[in-house]
């Protein structure tokens, strides 16, 4: 009788939920085929590089991996305790911060210049339209081919996948 009432009133156990969770965990480890030693070495090197630029608290630094769509994302949570007086970049930067508009070829001038302008000026509706219809902007579109799903929106279901993530496996 109790069983009958349970069946009647309690929602049935959904095995699809169990399947989803088991799949999530197993795919995470499938995707993350790094050996634990490699992960430790990566963490060590990562913290070393960061500490070249800022002072950090390595004892409370945390580096974890998380399933994100097709990739595994590495998340580093590193408490910064101070800024170094003199950053220690490994190599001097050779490239210019940003090319001046005069040096840019005419075809790339329009979008480049618009992007470099301060937001107030760049956001005028006419200018935006001009940038969007500039030949350079159009050339960036992939040519329409029959295999038109080549650039399929593989990340379009972000919201749901985030919901799938749940707690990190042990």
């Amino acid at each position: 009788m109790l069983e009958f009432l349970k069946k009647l009133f309690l929602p049935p156990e959904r095995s699809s939920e169990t399947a989803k969770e088991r799949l999530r965990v197993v795919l995470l480890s499938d995707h993350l085929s790094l050996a634990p030693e490699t992960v430790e070495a990566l963490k060590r090197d990562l913290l070393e590089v960061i500490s070249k630029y800022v002072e950090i608290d390595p004892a409370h630094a945390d580096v974890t991996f998380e399933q994100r769509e097709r990739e595994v994302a590495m998340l580093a949570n590193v408490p910064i305790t101070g800024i170094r007086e003199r950053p220690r970049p490994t190599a001097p930067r050779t490239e210019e911060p940003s090319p001046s508009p005069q040096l840019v070829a005419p075809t790339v001038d329009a979008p480049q210049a618009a992007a470099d302008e301060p937001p107030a000026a760049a956001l005028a509706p006419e200018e935006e339209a001009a940038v969007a219809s500039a030949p350079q902007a159009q050339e960036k579109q992939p040519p329409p081919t029959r295999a038109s799903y080549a650039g399929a929106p593989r990340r379009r279901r972000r919201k749901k996948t985030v919901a799938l993530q749940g707690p990190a496996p042990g």
Partner: protein
Amino acid sequence: MSSGRAIVITSGKGGVGKTTTTANVGAALAKRGRRVALVDTDIGLRNLDLVLGVEKRIVFDLVEVVEGRCQLRQALIRDKRLPTLALLPAAQTREKEAVGEEQMKGVIDALAESNDYVLIDCAAGIEHGFRMAIAGAREAIVVTTPEISAIRDADRVVGKLTQAGLPLRLIINRVRPEMVKSGDMLSVDDVCDVLSAELLGIVPDDEEVIDTTNRGEPLVLDETKRLTAIYDKIARRLDGEAVPFTSLATPSFFGRLFTMWKAG
């Protein structure tokens, strides 16, 4: 100069319906007048000939073509029901290693010159047979079922195809809408989420498949079959039409049985 689209149909796991899918999607495209060549690359375990009902007409096979013992056109078996459909059968008594990736690419390129579609039926697994099957392909269809073992394998395959730079779409096979509704089967959305892949088709589980395979007649040849409309829709989507997916959700308890087969 190749004009046709070379599409590999793969799954990782065996038994999820690659061969049935290849046969029916190919036949559905041929019904639309497209020139279609089906290539069975499952050397040693060929089956596409059986599903198509042409097993008695095999004279030469893929390996003999590759080894230069016959012309490609001599090995092609033209379907008697659909004049634009042809099959290049696999060898049954050879090893998969008999065909290399470059050789396979040559055969697929040659077929693509004289066909609109070259559908490559891949063997299960992700070893040599898989690499050979994808060698000449430009696109991929991943077939899976809503079971965790099939999805896990499909995930590996999706990773490998992405690595190889092949755009891919998903066919979810053997869906049982009533089980999805009761929460006892992963839904189409769940599967697409996990694999982060675009959907090409949803094929319900149906005993029609066993029946038509027994007879060696691709079921899309019979317009009265429930799954025919579903494979036709997949063919139209491949052809570039935006065919909407009918929801598997059922409006009422009584409508459930009637809407079950409208998916796809």
